[in-house]
């Protein structure tokens, strides 16, 4: 009995212990969850929108152009006053009567669309034309969109479309201004300027309030 007892089987074969090939992933998942939460909370997926505006500069030639625009019949002047009030008049300030209106669909938008009927009709036509043109091909779609944009701006800036003169008073808020600029886009008005309120405008507003 000089045999060493290996403690194993009687066969005498040394059996290798079967390794467990499974790795526990739980700690890794824990950590990744934390990271995901961190990134989710810290990111802003929605990029803010912007509105591009071009203001006239102080150069003389542009100023003159604006002055001639004011004289035409196509002008509509919008005065933005405090407490979300807006007033508008059409044409020359000396001959026009000031009217009060409100923000939104039934207020200023109705007024502007009525003034801009021709452009509205043309834009509707244009939209209909392009409605069926949607294409899955990205490049074609891009080209269509570019063409649409170009024709839209042509309609908006055509002769005979109204020019809006926006005059915000000091007491009005930034939101009021943005709302009105929004209406410019909604009503397809391509020509608009932001101007200062003058004494005459103030007097007209005060006269209406009485």
């Amino acid at each position, binding site marked *: 009995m000089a045999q060493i007892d290996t403690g194993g089987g009687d066969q005498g074969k040394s059996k290798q212990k079967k390794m467990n090939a*499974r790795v*526990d*992933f*739980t700690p*890794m*998942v824990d950590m*990744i*969850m934390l*990271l*995901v939460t961190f*990134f*989710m909370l*810290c*990111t*802003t*997926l*929605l*990029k*803010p*929108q*912007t*509105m*591009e*505006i*071009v*203001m*006239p*500069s*102080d*150069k003389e030639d542009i100023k003159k152009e604006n002055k001639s625009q004011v004289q035409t019949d196509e002008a509509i002047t919008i005065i*933005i006053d405090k407490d979300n009030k807006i007033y508008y008049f059409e044409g020359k300030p000396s001959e026009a009567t000031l009217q009060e209106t409100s923000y*939104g*669909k039934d207020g200023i938008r109705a007024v502007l669309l009525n003034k801009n009927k021709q452009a509205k009709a043309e834009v509707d036509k244009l939209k209909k034309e392009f409605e069926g043109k949607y294409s899955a091909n990205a490049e074609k779609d891009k080209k269509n969109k570019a063409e649409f944009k170009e024709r839209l701006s042509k309609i908006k800036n055509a002769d005979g479309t109204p020019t809006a003169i926006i005059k*915000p*008073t*000091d*007491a*009005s*808020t*930034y*939101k*009021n*201004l*943005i*709302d009105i*600029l*929004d209406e410019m*886009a*909604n009503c397809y008005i391509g020509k608009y300027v*932001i101007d*200062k309120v003058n004494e005459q405008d103030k007097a007209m507003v005060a006269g209406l309030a009485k």
Partner: protein
Amino acid sequence: MGRFRVKKQDTFIDMTPMSDVMVLLLTFFMLTATFTKEEPVKVNVPGSVSEIKIPENNLLTIFVSPEGKIFMTMDSPVGQEKMAQELIDNNKLSLTAQQLKEFAQVPTFGTPLNTIGSWVDMEPAKRNELLTKDSGAGIPCDSLNDELKEWVIAARNANGENMGIAIKADKNTPYSSIKEVMNSLRSIDESRYNLITTLKAGE
């Protein structure tokens, strides 16, 4: 017959598919991440129907708080450093090299030019507190002392023609403050800029 044996259940759940999904999600968020910059004032921008996105980079943002205080930020530290360097070169601003380095890293700034140095020296946590609480904070922008103009000119010179300018103002900011910003931009012939808004559902 043998004894009845309850089969031993394996409690080990395979986590591999879950970690696969998680890693995918993580990669997605990491790649799309654009970190929100710390802003001294909470600015609630009004909604609009405009769908134009703001430019990706090289953007100078002018914040106007509801009280009419003006702050400013450049989207990259490099651009911000260049802008400050430009002002230093023109003797409008005096900062040491260390202060300049520190200034490049601040998320948003907005104090009069002569106090920028001491503001940068403060602890980061106290800087924003000063911006929000001190009545002297904000970039002066009126006809007597128009420092906003200096900043914008410096930024334009330092960052080139294609730098964009954006105005981010609160819904309730009075127009008089916006007007001052617009006037000083107009006086230096910066007639193209963006107004930041959020998306509003159409009516």
